[in-house]
């Protein structure tokens, strides 16, 4: 920024964006310091959706708390539930049957698709393309229908239980999954046709909000944002859980770490997810769906940290047990919260229009940021 040399001094403008703003994805408040349209710095104000989820955990039994985690990242509720159940299982030393693990993978990947669809729609809407959001919701509806048929709930599904699953899959579950995967692959082609080579879209996203691998690691940023910077880090490969090691899939990465690359990575993840779902559905073993868990779940004294690859990045649960029916402490490492820290770094020197693009590309859910 060139220093002002004349006596006509210009002032910076402080603009308050949110918490009631169309494109801060909920109740994020960003205070922007502007020089004209150029952003000099940002400050995030969070906590408008704070519900004290971690504190609630201390007053509920392990099973009672499970539905609460669905309300954190509510667009990827299944992933939240998976992470929590896995942490509790590690704590209690419970073996989860093969079939349950396989169904968990299928549902989690379906949820990843749903979450990415919502991201794509709102991200495109932020950048001004108003049509993709309706297509994305049409496809997301199919995922929600599968959830609804499986467990009766669409959004906050609470589909997993500590030790396995509550419900057996419904008739035609496999067929529904296959039909959906085939259909989605075609639809992803359509989105790509609409956006990937669109000159305006490329202009709006390429080179915007660059976060290189070093910065990503410094901030602890994970998920597609990290992979777009060229780091092939995916917990499903790095420390496989739920039998992910059995499936054949790639980790899509890009090099530049800008908004466009993050878009490309997520678009590729759609295809990888359908690939995993197909394999999992085809190899779905028969058998029990729930391990041996006593009605009163009392894990031994100890602690456990389990992290999974949620759609938005590394989702970790740290649970401390004092041997009672209630956890002593639950701490969540939400990907949205950690990734949001990088907003300031990405926004400096950008324009206002870039800020909304960057907020969209981090893919935050405020329920998870504030908890």
């Amino acid at each position, binding site marked *: 920024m060139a220093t002002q040399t004349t006596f006509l001094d210009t002032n910076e403008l402080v*603009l308050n964006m949110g918490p009631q703003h169309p494109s801060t994805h909920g109740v994020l408040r960003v205070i922007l310091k502007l020089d004209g349209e150029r952003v000099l710095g940002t400050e995030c104000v969070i906590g408008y959706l704070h519900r004290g989820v971690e504190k609630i955990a201390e007053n509920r039994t392990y099973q009672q708390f499970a539905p609460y985690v669905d309300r954190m990242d509510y667009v990827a509720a299944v992933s939240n539930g998976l992470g929590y159940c896995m942490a509790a299982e590690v704590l209690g030393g419970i073996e989860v049957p093969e079939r349950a693990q396989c169904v968990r993978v299928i549902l989690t990947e379906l949820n990843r698709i749903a979450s990415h669809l919502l991201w794509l729609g709102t991200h495109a809407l932020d950048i001004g393309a108003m049509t993709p959001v309706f297509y994305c919701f049409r496809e997301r509806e199919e995922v929600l229908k599968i959830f609804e048929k499986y467990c009766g709930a669409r959004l906050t599904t609470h589909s997993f239980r500590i030790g396995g699953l509550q419900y057996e899959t419904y008739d035609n579950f496999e067929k529904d999954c296959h039909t959906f995967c085939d259909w989605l692959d075609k639809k992803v082609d359509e989105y790509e046709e609409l956006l990937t080579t669109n000159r305006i879209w490329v*202009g709006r996203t390429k080179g915007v909000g660059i976060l290189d691998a070093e910065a990503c690691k410094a901030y602890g940023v994970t998920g597609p944002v990290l992979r777009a910077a060229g780091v092939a880090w995916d917990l499903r490969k790095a420390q496989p859980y739920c039998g992910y090691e059995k499936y054949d899939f790639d980790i899509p990465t890009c090099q530049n770490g800008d908004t466009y690359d993050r878009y490309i990575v997520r678009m590729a993840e759609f295809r990888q997810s359908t690939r995993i779902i197909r394999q999992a559905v085809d190899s779905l073993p028969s058998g029990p769906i729930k391990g041996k868990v006593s009605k009163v779940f009392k894990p031994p004294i100890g602690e456990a940290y389990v992290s999974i690859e949620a759609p938005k990045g590394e989702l970790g649960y740290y649970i401390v047990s004092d041997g009672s029916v209630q956890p002593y402490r639950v701490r969540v490492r939400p990907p949205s919260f950690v990734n949001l820290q990088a907003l300031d770094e990405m926004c400096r020197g950008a324009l206002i*229009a870039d800020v909304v693009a960057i907020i969209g590309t981090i893919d935050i859910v405020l329920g998870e940021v504030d908890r």
Partner: protein
Amino acid sequence: MEEILNSPYVFPAIATALIIAVFPLVAGYIVLAERKVLADFQVRLGPMRVGPYGFLQPLADAVKLLLKEDIIPAAADTWIFWGAPVLSTFTALTAFAVMPFSDRFYVADVNIGILFILAMSSIGILGLILGGWSSNSKYSLLGALRSAAQMVSYEVPLGFAIVTALMVAQTLSMQGIVQAQYDKGIWIAFSNYGLMLIPTALFIIAGVAETNRAPFDLPEAESEIVAGFHTEYSGFRFALYFLAEYASIFVLCGVAVTVFFGGWLRPFANVGFLEVPLNVIFPILLFLLIGGGCGVGTMRVSQAYEKGIMAVLTLAMLLVAALFAIPAVNVLIIGFFWFLFKVLILIYMFIWFRGTFPRFRYDQLMQLGWRYLIPISMGGLVVNGVVLLLTS
């Protein structure tokens, strides 16, 4: 009585009153059409609640806006805040004065017609800037600054494109431009060995920007600056801005049609044997088709009042179709029909853009304007001028 009727002021006065009275309704229905067309692109239905298939939605919207509380922010500059939307609406509607709806229906045919429209649209920017400034809100201010920069820069290629067309038409009068296209036997868009397509395309691109439509809708980019210059406006004042926006879209499409696409002339205006198919059969078939659609709609709606409205619409469409069959009436309305038909196609295109493109960023918009559109429009002017000189 005779004297009054023969006075040169009577017909323009009636036409003016008609435009002012009818256009707000037309604008409302353009909005409805936009919502319906967008809904069609976006796999949804659009407004369906008020009236059959949402046909009464514009009326409901208008009533709602009129009944809303009239809010003026405490920090606003009251008089300017009050006057800015009026200025915008006034200039947008005034531009209709020289709009050649048909060979008979126009308010005035002045010899500087096109200049008048450009002048009015330039003054219209003031309404936006003043509105954004006087709101005393940061979002409004940003929107106003964006619109000022955008409209001023895109007026240049717009002007150059029109100048190029004027070189071909050799007149500034709107009626004269249409007449020139009739004499040449070709629309200006396709004349000059197809070279005029350059300014035509530029005019449409710059026109989209000039009217703040997507993908150039930065002044009111809702995902960035909430609603831009009219963030603080509500109720009737907001309705005025809305009216002004749609009026200027209509005017711009009207200018594009008049200057480049033959105005109220039918396609191939000089080819005699197309007279009957294009001027009689085509409109009759079109309105029969619309009437048939309304008829099918009548069957499908359930409530009695909805059935009534659809039946009336069906009958009206059939009546219009019948009017085109009467030679004496056909002559009167055919120009009007073609003008509106072409304008609506252009407006459909505008909506199509909105459904397809992401939004430009501020700096990219300026780049596109100054680095590409203006040089290309100047080049188009020179090339067309040289070709005109060589062939005349």
